[in-house]
């Protein structure tokens, strides 16, 4: 169980990571894993993996896995209220620093939107971030599955892409259908 000073250390650690997490928090996973499990034994490996998988499978920002880590660590007290507080605290520790930094960045970019440098930055980064999105999807598909040769998994991924690009079927419905297909044991 974590003491209060452990929590302070933990939240400070997340706040610091927040400012170093370019491109989102998934790149931080190895570091957080090392900090929480190898160094401090604050959470079990399966709890860690479950948190990451749940956050990735759901449609929101992936950083929500920090809230789940906090939830799991605080739940060791057996109190659900504390668990919720722990989850929120971890999330806030990460969200606040990068958000403040970005608030000022966004204002600066907006003020200088007609400068050549800002225009060149936006145009230059565009093809890269498009490729990044597609690559993230591919990485996510292989992350918790059994790898590249799982044809049923890729069939679902491919069908989803086709449906989203071609039709107006709500994405939440697709997510729900995907969950049902998985529950029937298609991927096992």
């Amino acid at each position, binding site marked *: 169980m974590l003491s209060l000073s452990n929590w302070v250390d933990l939240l400070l650690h997340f706040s610091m990571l927040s400012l170093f997490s370019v491109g989102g928090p998934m790149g931080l996973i190895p570091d957080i894993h090392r900090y929480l499990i190898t160094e401090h034994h604050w959470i079990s490996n399966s709890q860690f993996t479950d948190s990451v998988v749940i956050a990735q499978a759901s449609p929101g920002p992936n950083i929500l896995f920090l809230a789940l880590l906090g939830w799991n660590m605080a739940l060791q007290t057996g109190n659900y209220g504390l668990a919720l507080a722990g989850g929120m605290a971890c999330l806030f520790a990460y969200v606040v620093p990068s*958000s403040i930094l970005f608030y000022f960045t966004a204002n600066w970019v907006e003020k200088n939107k007609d400068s050549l440098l800002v225009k060149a930055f936006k145009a230059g980064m565009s093809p890269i971030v498009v490729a990044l999105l597609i690559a993230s999807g591919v990485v996510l598909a292989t992350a918790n599955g059994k790898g590249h040769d799982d044809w049923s998994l890729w069939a679902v991924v491919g069908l989803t892409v086709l449906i989203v690009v071609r039709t107006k079927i709500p994405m939440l419905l697709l997510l729900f259908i995907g969950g049902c297909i998985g529950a029937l044991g298609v991927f096992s």
Partner: protein
Amino acid sequence: MAFTEEMVVEKKRWLTKTEFLEEWAVAQTMPGAPVMNLSIMIGSRHFGVNGALAGLTGVLILPLILVFILVGTFAYFGRDPHLVGALEGMGAVSAGLLIATGVKLIKPLRANPLGHPLCLLLGTACFSLIALAHYPLATVLLALGPLACGIVYWKFILISRGK
């Protein structure tokens, strides 16, 4: 991410696809989750700090409730194979949603000052480095970003001199 694009571009039409892509480029290259950054950007442009806070809260609150429900279900039922399968299914669909959003954003690249061949080259390089060679995202951004932006900047300078 997929939901943000659908809402901001296709339903509310706050931004065109090209604008969305450009804002996304900025949101992605700064620290913090890109979706959060994007909502801060859109919120603060129209309503200052309050708008940024509202955007941030809005983009976090529903998914947060959803993951807490999921983790609660997991804690309650244990590691049931149906639940694990359901998560895998949702993960596959989430992956598809990300790829689909990327595919939808290819179209606005047509007007990109880099031109088609360079866009294709940079995109392919970025995709291969991340999805196939598994390089960390920050490394890839640092390697390809300055190169791409440098080329665009150089083109802008050439155009302005040409006038």
